[in-house]
Structures are given as structure tokens and as C-alpha cells.
């Protein structure tokens, strides 16, 4: 995306008429923008798919694919639906102009276009886009890009839906003791490094970090967006987490610092995913027996001295793709019946 520290933006002019393209390009370049041109809607869509533009100036009457069709295609495209479009045309009927706005056009400029008006409309559209981008960035920072996408597609509504997925809990063993013997600045730095490594492992396998509590993480594979083979993805993410921790521990050993150990619990099954809270403050989360089981398994790693524990459903879904060891039935806290527990030692 273009930098907005200056006024310059990347604009796409779409018009089948050469004189119109030249004239618009001239006016926009004089305003300091970078301008690319397309001579019909089909070419324009290809360019928008391939590149990043801040604003499109779109003619309506064009061969191959007209402006109405371009607007329809844009509104159906998750990545492009927020790209602002200013329609530039000399449509004769008001109904055509109204149709443009209904299809999502930001504004309409009648040809021949007045230079002052062009600047005002382009600047206003770019400013609105800048504010929208800032808003999206804020949502991404405090939610996750998947939740941001879910919010964008479905809107916000309290309540949940049943989904099949895999939940992974992880935390650093003995973190409280570590905090007591480490300066706070160093603890924050350690947490940031730990989170950066764990996020990478989880995101690489399609997981979403749903909650961060101290040194603990709750991750979901399969919600809000579906993930194929979510159980195996979660187990492989856990193995990557262990591998990354070994690298971090080598660095810590070289610096004369203590070794970190982690515990990971993974469970697969049905859960209820959605937004909980109030209309003014809410969070996306998953609840249900599967979530509780994953949390208990993570806690149980301390008892059995294993880094990764999984439930029977995860073990079945993974099949022979990982080395697992049956630890027998265990009575976990809060569970009515004993649960078969498996330890994961590595990928097969």
C-alpha cells in the first residue's frame, strides 16, 4: 500500500477512451499520485488482483467488461471489496449513477471532470480509505487477522456456532519462579521472544492464537476459519514449538541463562466458537469440553514430565504421522471419566 505520510497514492484509471485516460492521468499525476491505466474492466480486475492500489477511477461504458460488472466483481472479492472506487462517466440517466453507488462505488464524477472537483473527491476518498485501513489495523492488532476477516465478512454478533476443531494450550514450565529471579525488563523481552516464536509455529500451521495469559497461550485450529486436517496441523505446530524452544535454549545456554521447558495439551472435537461479552466489549473465543480437555492435558504434562500430550480424538486423526505413546487412562481434574492420554515424541 502507498505511504500516506505524503499525499501520494497508487491510483488505477480504467477507461476505454484514450483521451479520457490521458486527461485523468495528467490531472492525477499533477496532484502527486502514481497512476496506472487499464482500457477495460477485465484488464483492470487482473491488475487489481496482481497489485496494490489505493483508489480506482472507473468508467462505466467499456467493452469486454463494463464498470457495473467491475463493481459487482469487486464487492464479491474479500480482498478488494474495500478498495474505493470513484466512477467517472457521463451516464445520461440518474438510475445508472444510483446503481453505481448501490454496487459500492464511493463517489461519482461526471465527465468532463473539473480539476478542482477531481482533487477534492480523490483526496476525500483516500482519507476515508486511510481511516478504514487504520481501523482494520487496530482490529488486527488486538484480535487476529482471521477474526478480523470473520468480522468483516459476517459482522459482529454475540453468540456462537458449533464447529469441529482442535484446541492447543501451551505454557512455560516454572515461569513464576523464573520471573522472581529475573529483572522485569528481561522477563518482558523473554515473553516477547517466546510469543514471536510460538506465533510463527502456530500461524504456519493455520492456527489462531486466541488468548495470551501471562506465559500461556490458547490456540484454535479450525475456527473462525476452517482448517483442513486441523488435528495434525496442531500436533505439527506443537512439534515446531518444541524445536524452536530448543534453538532458544541454545542461545540462553550460551548466555549462561536457565533452560526453558514447555507443556502443550491438545484436544480435538466439537466446540462452540463465537463472540462472548457485551455489545460494547467482546472477545472471540471457543468453549466446551474439548477446550477444557486441552487445558487439563497441558496441566498434566507437569505430572508426567512430557512436553506434548494429546487426547484420543487427536491421536486417531493424526494416525501414523507422528510418534505417539499411550500413557493409559488418566483421571483429569474436572472430568467425570478417565481419559486415554497419549504423549507425542516426534513426527514419523
Amino acid at each position, binding site marked *: 500500500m502507498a505511504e500516506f505520510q505524503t499525499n501520494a497514492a497508487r491510483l488505477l484509471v480504467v477507461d*476505454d*477512451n*484514450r*483521451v*479520457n485516460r*490521458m*486527461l485523468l492521468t*495528467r*490531472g492525477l499525476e499533477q496532484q502527486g499520485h502514481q497512476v496506472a491505466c487499464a482500457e477495460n474492466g477485465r484488464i483492470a480486475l487482473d491488475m487489481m488482483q496482481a497489485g496494490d492500489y489505493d483508489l480506482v477511477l472507473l468508467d462505466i*461504458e*467499456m*467493452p469486454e467488461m463494463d464498470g457495473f460488472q467491475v463493481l459487482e466483481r469487486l464487492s464479491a472479492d474479500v480482498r478488494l471489496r474495500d478498495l474505493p472506487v470513484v466512477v467517472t462517466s*457521463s451516464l*445520461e440517466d440518474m438510475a445508472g449513477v444510483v446503481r453505481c453507488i448501490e454496487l459500492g462505488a464511493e463517489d461519482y464524477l461526471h*465527465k*468532463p471532470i*473539473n*480539476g478542482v472537483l477531481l482533487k477534492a473527491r480523490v483526496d476525500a476518498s483516500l482519507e476515508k480509505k486511510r481511516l478504514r485501513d487504520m481501523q482494520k489495523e487496530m482490529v488486527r492488532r488486538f484480535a487476529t487477522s482471521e477474526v478480523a476477516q470473520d468480522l468483516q465478512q459476517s459482522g459482529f454478533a454475540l453468540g456462537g456456532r458449533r464447529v469441529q476443531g482442535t484446541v492447543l494450550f501451551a505454557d512455560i514450565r516454572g515461569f513464576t519462579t523464573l520471573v522472581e529471579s529475573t529483572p522485569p525488563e528481561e522477563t518482558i523481552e523473554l515473553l516477547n521472544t517466546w510469543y514471536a516464536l510460538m506465533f510463527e509455529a502456530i500461524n504456519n500451521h493455520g492456527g489462531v492464537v486466541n488468548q495470551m495469559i501471562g506465559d500461556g497461550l490458547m490456540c484454535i485450529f479450525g475456527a473462525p476459519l476452517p482448517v483442513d486436517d486441523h488435528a495434525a496441523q496442531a500436533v505439527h505446530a506443537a512439534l515446531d514449538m518444541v524445536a524452536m524452544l530448543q534453538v532458544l535454549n541454545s542461545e540462553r545456554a550460551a548466555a549462561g541463562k536457565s533452560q526453558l521447558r514447555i507443556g502443550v495439551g491438545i484436544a480435538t472435537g466439537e466446540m462452540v466458537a463465537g463472540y462472548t461479552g457485551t455489545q460494547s466489549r467482546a472477545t472471540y473465543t471457543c468453549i466446551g469440553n474439548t477446550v477444557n480437555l486441552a487445558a487439563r492435558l497441558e496441566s498434566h504434562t507437569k505430572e508426567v514430565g512430557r512436553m506434548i500430550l494429546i487426547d484420543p480424538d487427536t491421536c486417531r486423526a493424526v494416525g501414523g504421522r507422528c510418534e505417539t505413546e499411550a500413557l493409559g487412562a488418566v483421571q483429569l481434574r474436572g472430568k467425570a471419566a478417565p481419559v486415554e492420554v497419549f504423549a507425542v515424541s516426534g513426527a514419523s
Partner: protein
Amino acid sequence: MNDVIDPAAWSELEQTAGADFVGELVQTFLEEGPGMLQALRDAHAAGSADDFRRNAHSLKSNGLTFGALGFAAQARALELGGLGAATPAALDELHDTWQGVVVALQERIANG
């Protein structure tokens, strides 16, 4: 000459784009115009209503840009009337008006 090119529209174009660039624009229009007029005739002959409307619309748009208001009005009438209402005489009339636009624009450019 003033009957063919509207002075106010021409002046606004020069202010918006700059006098030098208007020369380039006119040159482009004079190159593209005959092809657009021919495409209009071809669409009429082929009975292609969409192509006919689109070409008439494009000629109207460029006519308005250069202040060729009479030419733009004729093109507009063809756009709105559509293929069904268009006659060979109306197309000939637009072509004749175009010849006057060419001369007027060339004079405008030559006189700076």
C-alpha cells in the same frame, strides 16, 4: 470557429491540463476520432446496439471535453436514440460536423 468549440470549455481544459498538454490531447483525439466514427458506422451496419451506444457515448464524452458542443450533442442524440433510431443520414451529419471540429481544433492549437 467559436461556433464549433465553446470558449469556456476550452479555457477550462487548458487550465486543468495545461496548454502544452492540450496540444497532445487534441493530437490524440484527431488520431482516434476517425476510428471511433468508423466503429460507430460498423456497429450500425452490424446491428450491434451495445457497440453503437458505447461508441456514440465515447464520441460524446470527448466532444464535451474539447468543448465541441454541437458535435457532442449529435453524438448524444445517437447514444440516447440507440441503434433503432439511427439513420445513415444522422451518421453522415455527425461525420460532417467532425470535419469542422478537426479544422477548429487545429486552428486552436496553431494559435496557441
